[in-house]
């Protein structure tokens, strides 16, 4: 295994071999985690190293297993809603929406127009929040201690303030209901959201000036953790990971759920499928999100936010099966429900995007150094609450 020459630092000279045949030693097994700060939670990587090069990597997870799906079979449909906040705790609004979509397709409830607009606004704000955080964490994983992450968190806090004034909680929003949203936006909320969205482009410009052209970031991420499109498709990878590999697949376009067909936006695609592309695809997605948000905030109509026929107490769904999926910030988040007509589902199953995106971790890491596995893991964008459920 030779160090691949970087296009930026292609200094002439002899090729350096990472592992020479004369000094070939024993393989070393390293257990990274579950309490390693770079694993984004309680996640463990059993890495087998030849020198510093990864020759085998086994992801171990389940440390945060909370029995989410079994609990969902025991509680009422409404009672599962606050638990979905705790799956991917950065993106509670999109989790809520996917679950509400699944239950609505079981019960056949219609969602009023204003609630549909609010859902789009909240989902896109969540996408901004998630991708901003991800860029910060990725840089933290590269060793840029503090600065990019703190800039990201400064902006994230503004979005969380919006969520708090709307739903009452910064992260555990528990906001969507079957047939609409729980409360209407308080006076001045939409204006505050429009002000935030208006200023977000300037923040992205600043953030990109800090990062996108940075030679160290390029050296650490370009050509690292390359994901071929064929592997991404066969492994069921979704979201920005898949689009960075060059596959044009966005549920907002494919399914056209909610009111997304009403909005104009483009789907950014990567060309190489490496870590840098995954970073860039997310930055470009944020720019598109800003466009969607501006359209939605302009077009949001007045009116009710709940289906008048919706019932909170004693809600029962019609017997049948339903799968509700949306394009979450991390990929396709879906809920599969089987109803027997009772107050709680017979079967409740979550399709978590970051869990399925994580399955290809070994393929991405093989042949790279142990320091690169941290960067690759950071670019996959996992939240352990969702991986382990």
């Amino acid at each position: 295994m030779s160090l691949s020459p970087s296009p930026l630092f292609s200094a002439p000279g002899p090729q350096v071999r990472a592992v020479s045949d004369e000094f070939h030693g024993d393989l070393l097994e390293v257990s990274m985690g579950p309490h390693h700060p770079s694993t984004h939670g309680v996640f463990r990587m059993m890495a087998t190293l030849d020198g510093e090069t990864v020759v085998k990597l086994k992801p171990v997870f389940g440390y945060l297993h909370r029995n989410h799906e079994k609990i969902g079979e025991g509680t009422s449909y409404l009672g599962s809603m606050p638990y979905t906040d705790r799956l991917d705790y950065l993106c509670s609004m999109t989790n809520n929406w996917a679950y509400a979509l699944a239950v609505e397709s079981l019960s056949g409830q219609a969602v009023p127009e204003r609630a549909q607009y609010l859902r789009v606004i909240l989902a896109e704000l969540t996408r901004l929040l998630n991708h901003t955080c991800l860029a910060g964490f990725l840089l933290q994983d590269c060793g840029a201690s503090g600065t990019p992450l703190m800039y990201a968190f400064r902006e994230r806090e503004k979005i969380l303030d919006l969520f708090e004034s709307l739903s009452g909680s910064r992260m555990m929003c528990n906001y969507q209901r079957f047939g609409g949203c729980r409360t209407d936006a308080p006076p001045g909320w939409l204006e505050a959201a429009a002000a935030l969205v208006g200023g977000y482009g300037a923040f992205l410009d600043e953030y990109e000036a800090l990062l996108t052209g940075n030679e160290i970031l390029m050296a650490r991420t370009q050509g690292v953790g390359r994901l071929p499109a064929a592997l991404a498709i066969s492994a069921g990878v979704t979201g920005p990971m898949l689009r960075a590999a060059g596959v044009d697949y966005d549920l907002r376009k494919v399914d056209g759920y909610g009111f997304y067909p009403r909005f104009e936006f483009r789907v950014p695609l990567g060309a190489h499928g490496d870590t840098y592309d995954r970073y860039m695809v997310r930055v470009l997605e944020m720019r598109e999100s800003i466009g969607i948000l501006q359209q939605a905030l302009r077009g949001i109509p007045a009116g009710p936010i709940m289906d008048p026929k919706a019932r909170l107490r004693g809600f029962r769904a019609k017997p049948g099966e339903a799968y509700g999926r949306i394009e979450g910030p991390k990929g396709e988040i879906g809920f599969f429900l089987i109803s027997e007509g009772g107050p709680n589902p017979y079967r409740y199953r979550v399709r978590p995007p970051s869990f399925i995106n994580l399955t290809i971790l070994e393929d991405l890491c093989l042949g790279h150094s142990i320091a690169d596995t941290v960067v690759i893991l950071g670019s996959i964008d996992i939240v352990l609450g969702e991986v382990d459920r």
Partner: protein
Amino acid sequence: MIGTGLLKGLAVTARNFAGSFHDPKRFVTTQYPEERTKLPEAYRNFPFLVSESADDPMGTLRCVACQICEKECPPQCILIEKSSDKKPDANGRMQLYPKIFDIDTAVCMSCQICVEVCPFDAIKMDQVFEIAATDRFTGLILDRQALAKPDSYFHQIRPTEAAEVEGRLAEGRRAAQEKARAAAAKAAPAAPAEPPAAPSAEAAKPPRPPA
């Protein structure tokens, strides 16, 4: 040229660093506990029980111990025991009341489903977040004395929602009064026509005041 990206990034950092001294847009830190941010009205953390008056909170709880919140609570952190006797509520109707109403705030996840399902507007979300306790049993399991807070407090923390609730309750009171008046009006002409020898079920009840 190698290094220009780095220099550009450094310029951003320098701007932010300098700005953190003079640009109010970059003063994002609140010096808690000396400074406090204003909580939004929607902010919620743990539930409390609404009582009509501050002087006699236990006697004027709105809760009628219907136990809907206990059943709907996703993490099952509410324990309610019904009373065996009844007390008149704000509308003058005889209602049960909770003999025991405990909420384990160590288990509560602040989802506010108890508030949404309550048909009596008797449980609402509080905004007090400085609730650290030294003992996880007695300090965090709140009984009905600790949970009861007067309606005026609810009006103070959530004016918009309280006004809505007030309207709903006033409507309920008006409907109850009208119903009582209609019942009295119906009973008034019917009473003299009724012979005093009533069926035995009627006789078991205390005698009605003469109309």
